[in-house]
Each structure stands twice: as structure tokens, then as C-alpha cells.
């Protein structure tokens, strides 16, 4: 994934969560950039995005 602020690219396991974070124990769907700390919504956790992308993916697979 890519930070929308500083364009830093990082992977899922390095999403910048820290033990001190106030949302750590809740069902947080935010991602914090490990470089600049900017927080943004995790698209992959969105049900709506999943619903829209799923038919597109299966169409592409059918074509493939």
C-alpha cells in the first residue's frame, strides 16, 4: 500500500500500529503510515469496496 500523503510504499504488516495507540484494542480500520504517521482508511477492510470490486475481479478471471 502507498501512503496518500508522503507516497511511501509499505506492506500490510508494517501499517504503523503502535502499542500506545488509543484505537489498538478496538476494531480499528485505520492505517498509519510508518514513515510520516498519516492515518487513512483501510480500503481492503471496506465491505462496500469489496462488493464493488468482487464482480470486477470475477469478470477479469472469467476473461483470463
Amino acid at each position, binding site marked *: 500500500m502507498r501512503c496518500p*500523503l508522503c507516497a511511501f510504499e509499505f506492506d500490510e504488516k508494517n501499517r504503523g500500529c503502535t502499542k500506545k*495507540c*488509543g*484505537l489498538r484494542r478496538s476494531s480499528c*480500520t*485505520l492505517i498509519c503510515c510508518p514513515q510520516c504517521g498519516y492515518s487513512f482508511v483501510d480500503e481492503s477492510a*471496506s465491505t462496500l*469496496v469489496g462488493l464493488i*470490486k468482487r464482480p470486477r475481479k470475477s469478470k477479469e478471471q472469467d476473461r483470463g
Partner: protein
Amino acid sequence: MHETAIPEENRPTSHRRILLIGNPNVGKSVVFGALTGRYVTVSNYPGTTVEIAKGSLHLDGVSYELVDTPGVNNLVPLSEDEQVTRDILLSERPESVLLVVDAKNLRRGLFIALQLAEMRIPFVIVLNMMDEARHRGIQIDTRALEKTLGVPVLPTVATQRKGLGRIPEAIKKRALPAFRTHYSEPVEQAIQVLEPLLPPCPFEKRSLALMYLCEDPGISRWIEERSDPGTIAKLSQIREAFEHHIGDSPAYRINRERLHAVDTVVSRTMVKTDAPRSTVYSGIHKWSTHPVYGVPFLLAVLAALYLFVGKFGAGTCVDFLEDVVFGRYLNPWSASAVKAIVPWAFLQDLIIGPYGIITMALTYSVAIVLPIVGTFFVAFGVLEDSGYLPRLAVMMNRPFRLLGLNGKAVLPMILGLGCDTMATITARILESPKERIIVTLLLALGVPCSAQLGVILAMLGNLSFAATILWAGVVVGVMGIVGYLAARLLPGRSGDFILEIPPLRVPTMSNIFFKTIARVEWYLKEAVPLFILGTLILFFSDRFGILASLERLASPVVVGFLGLPAKASEAFLVGFLRRDYGAAGLYALASAGQLTPVQSLVSLVTITLFVPCIANVFVIVKERGWRIALAMVAFIFPFAFLVGGALNKILTLLGVTL
């Protein structure tokens, strides 16, 4: 390349330690795994919650302990992770350091390399992710880099184990760095005076002097534990004189000069062969970051935002959803359906009455706030993906220094325009507790979130341009005064501003679309339950006569001081839960013609200065603690009414009609 003269023989095995250092997310753990194999111990660094992994590495029959340290961006620590890495370096001189650098972000890695060179610790640069760098048209002359720094530079792709085989041989060389950063005269002079006074340390005193000048509290403590009171006083005097002489934050000055040295090395060793940026891009970059010309640029961006969100989102889209979808279809349909299905008048009222879940909570959240939030998220996504936001941070660095902050604080402020709760968490990126408290306070006090901003823009859209300027002027002025006073009253110092600026780019529509969808969903999950809760409070308060009593109680403030109709109390009441909900209530009042332009402005200023929402209060409690959260809430609410009332009195006294 210079090779060390430190004798290896007769050293106890426990002292043969190699440190793995690097920025976060550069592949350190992959390199660690490849060098140590399966036998790894993970434990917390003493006195901290930071985990350290240790493993064994065998070189020519000699066993070394390889320590995987937490990711760092600076060896003058800004975070607990960085402090642990610096402490490990300080507590025992390692045999060697493996510095893992992301080849795509060479500048960031070299910033650490230059600090290691200042320490004169033998190190090897593992230039990782070379494949990704090549794909991006980045070419690094590793030989030139080796020659410049005087240490081995190994190009690798750790995930494919490419280049890792050369690491043991490079470690054995124990090459001492040859590079020396030349600082400006005042810095060099301060180093020269400090060096003889400093206690013996495991690395070069020059580096220790620089860390001390940067006001690193850990280093200051370490030095004080090893020096007599007379020397401590002298050291402190030298540092104060240096700070006074340069008239700037010492850490900021030293980091800036170090970054300049990094840039020189990068320009000699790295070539980026992507398509040349057009003059339009470079022009936009220049204008948007300029402290003076950046202002009209920002105003143009805000004007576009106002037109898109305030006029299109809050006007066209809200009108359609509120009047057509809800007004003409959903509300009448649901009213007749509920009346047909639910026989009890009480329940009917709860669902479709004046304080009903459908007629109020869902109408406000979906018909009024959602289109505004949706259009704001689209505009915000465009700003994010274009690369403008970090440029805005650069432009705002100087003005923010007046508030005891730096340009980095712009990031949570900008993010606050999306969601203040999210932004309060982002305040963690700031170095000092003082900065974090100031930013949290300003966010809670005056930065409207997307939902509230949208509703405000919608109301302002129906008023004159002077009303918009007055609203913005009062809110920004109040934040400026509160920030300025907080910066002077709160103890502590401000941090430094280092931010990588990504290239400007044209946003892709699909990216903006999915981003907006994800954010809208997130918003609905966050806001709708609180909208329903607020409606239930209003419903039951109305049923049991509490609402009328509250309106009577609040009358001296709301009617007498703010000059608003008593009905506005309801908006302020739900505004305690979410201020966008309160703003939506004011919007409904204004749409019904129950607020004059002056009343609209006064009510908007008051609700803007409310604490954003209950969720925000909880996050402040979690991030800053109970005492600070309570103090903020106790200050903000009365202060909001005070500013609103003062504005009402001034406008009335001057006979302003707007």
C-alpha cells in the same frame, strides 16, 4: 577503504555483537532471518515495551550475536523505538553495524549512514530493494557510494536472497567510515569547545557533541551521570550560547545541514531516469511551497473546495436528497408504512415523529451530512493523491512555529478536516508532549471535520461572502490566539520538521472513487449510531419535558447572550455528541427561516468551537490521559459560548446585518 585496527582476538564472545539498523520497513527482518536462521530470541528491551530480536551469526568459526534493532529515522531519537536503537549503540560499541537501506529511499537511509559515520563505527550498507528501485528508474552507483563513504555497499534483493551472500565477507572487513560531514562555522566551533569536556564514550566524541547540541534528553542524562557538576554547568552554558547564536532550534539547524550533506552524496551517486517533470509541475511545486505565493495558491484551492463541497455537495446534492428522496418519497412512505404496521403512537413517534429515527437521525445523517461528506472526501482524495498536502505542510512551517509547532503539525490539522478523531491519533507523529497537547487542543477546539465543514459551507453558501470571511477569521484568529498562548504557557520544546515531498501527480479517478467509498462507509459506521443516540436523547427529553426545561435553563446563554432562538438549544445539546449533528440542526433551523444571517453566523462560530464528538473525547482520554481530556473539555465548551456571545454583542453593537 579504511580498515579498522581494533584487534578481534581475545574479545569475549558476549562482546562480539553486530547491530542491524535501518529505517522502518526496509527489509531488516528479512536480512536478519537470512543471516541467523531459526534460533532467534525475542525480548523487550529493558524498561521499555520495544521488542528486540537476537540471533547467532557464525563467521570463520567465530560466533557473533546479531541484534535486530527497531526501525529508526534519526539517531537523535524522536520515538521510544529510536531511543532503544540509540541506547544500544551508546551502551556498547558493536563489532560492526549492518545498515539496511531502501534503495528507493536512499536519502532517508543516508541520513542514518552519515550519523554512523560521525560515530566512526564500522558499518556495511545493505542497499536493499534494488529491483524495485530499478523499476522506478533509480540507478545507484554503488562503487561511487563506497568510495564516498568509505564503507562496503552491497546491492541486495533480500526477499529473493540476492546479494546476501556477500554480507559476511563485508562484515569481516570492519571498515571504518571515511566520510566526514562538514558543518557551518558555529556548529563546528561548538563541537570543538564541547569535545574536551565530554566523558569517554563508546564512539567518537564529535558525534556525542552533536547529539548533545541537539538537546537529546537521553544523551544529556547519560553525560550528566558521568560528569561533575562544574562540567555539566559549562556544557549547558555552551549549548545555550550556541542556541542563542544561531537563533534557531539547534536540532533543526544540525539536521538541515546534515540533510544538505546527504543531498550532496545523493547527487553524486544516484540518477533518476524517469520522464523529466514538465515546467508546469515544477511551477506548481515552487508556488505551492513558497511562504508568500503559497497563500494565493492555498486560497485558490479553498475556493475550489468551497464551490465543489459548499455549492455542489451542500447545495445541489443535499437539496435533491432532502427534498426529493426523503421529502417526497422516503419520509411519506415510511410514515404510512409505520402507521400501518406499528399500532402504538409512542413507537410511531419514535420512528417518524419530529424527533424520529427516520425523520431526524437518518434524514440528517443521510440527506444532509452524507452528500456533503461524500463530496468533501472526493475533494480531499484529489488533494491527497495530487501531492499538494505535504507542500502545504512546508508552506505552513513558519507560521506554525508561532504556535510552538512546526510544519509537521499541519498534517494532523489537515487530517482533522477529514476526521478530528483520526487526526488526534496522528498527533503522535509530533516529537514533544507539548506539541501533541497543543495540536490536540487546536483540533478539538477549532478544526471542523468534513461533515461539519460541509454543513457550515452549506449554511455560509446562503449568506454573504462577508459572513464566510468573518466565520473563517474568527475561528482562525481564536485558534491562533489559543495556540500562541498555549505555546508560551506549556513547558517543553518544539520538534524538528523533516518531511519527504513526493512528486506531484495527476490523481486517478478509480483510486479516488474507491477511497471515497471506503471513507463514506467508515463515516456511516462512525456517525449514524451517534446520530441515532442523539435523536433518542432528544426524543425522550421531549417526552418527559426535559427538553423544555433545558431550553428554559439554557435560555439566558442561548437567547440572552448568543441572541439565538430557544430552539437552537437542541442543536447545541446534540452538538455535545457530534458537532456536525449540531450543525445539521442549525442548518435545518436556517433552512426553515428561523435564523437571521447574524444568528446563523453566531451559531456557526459557537458550534465550530465545540469539541468534535464523543469519540474524539474518548481518543483524547486514551492518547493524552483523563486529566488533560477533562481540562480541554472544561475549557472548550464555555469558551465556545463566550466567543459566540462576544461575536453576537459586537455585531449587534456595530449594527452589522450581513
